[in-house]
């Protein structure tokens, strides 16, 4: 079993009211010096079998058609190795 992570973020030009609400709360909580917050989604996919190029291509398609709405969102596909560090396997803007 291997883990593939898909991060989905609103495109930079799209207003992120949730991120803004978080950012506005920061000074109230005593956190200074953070000028912007954007909120995204992280999907962790447990993959049966090897994460080879074919598997990654399928996950890329899954991210593009379902996990992200590419009208408003970008996504990044990362493969997580046994130690838990991530390697970018493809991004789509």
């Amino acid at each position, binding site marked *: 079993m291997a883990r593939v992570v898909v991060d989905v973020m609103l495109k930079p030009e799209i*207003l992120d009211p949730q991120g803004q609400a978080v950012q506005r709360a920061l000074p109230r909580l005593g956190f200074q010096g953070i000028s912007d917050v954007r909120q995204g989604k992280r999907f962790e996919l447990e993959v049966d079998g090897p994460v080879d190029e074919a598997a990654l291509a399928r996950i890329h398609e899954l991210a593009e058609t*379902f996990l992200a709405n590419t*009208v408003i969102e970008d996504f990044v596909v990362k493969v997580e190795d046994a130690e838990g560090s991530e390697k970018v396997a493809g991004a789509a803007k």
Partner: protein
Amino acid sequence: MTARIGVVTFPGTLDDRDTQRAVRVAGAEAVPLWHKDKDLKQVDAVVLPGGFSYGDYLRAGAISRFSPVMESVIEQAKAGMPVLGICNGFQVLTETHLLPGAMLRNNHLHFICRDQKLRVENAETAWTADYTAGQEISVPLKNIDGQYTADERTLDMLEAEGRVAFRYLDMNPNGSLRDIAGITNEAGNVVGLMPHPEHAVEPLVGTGRTDGLGFFTSILKKLVNA
């Protein structure tokens, strides 16, 4: 022959009964359609009603878009069958790309529920022919993911082709770009809007007016004349 108008129920749909009722009040036959059915039961048109299909998980409308019933709806809509998406139904229609753009969380992050004034901008679609261009109507609005967005090029295209079907009047309730409340596809058979005409078809409920009834009489007239 009575026109048959299908009303789809997804898990989490709320407004299917109101929509069926609106269809009947207008004088058509309401045909319930289940999200697992690929068979559209020979309906003449389909309404995707409001609610929170699949709990709005992932994104509003994103999971419903892949339901068996939507495979048939997409195919038939492309072939010219009239389809109306209200609120969550509008979100489903943008997720299917039958309508351009996407829906974001309201700019103020609050769920909003109010009587909303709209201007009918395009009275030539399958669902708006009983209105006149420029007519002002008032129907209920209730949503949290109602902020219509699209890139500038798409917005300019919609304006140039007269495909902005409805615009918010007096106030923009959710930050929708260019006050857009509803749009139509190029052919005019697919229409989506955030406010709820099906809640304003009888004077006893909703806004106390019947401003929403025109959607359902429009389609009926179109189908009978077709």
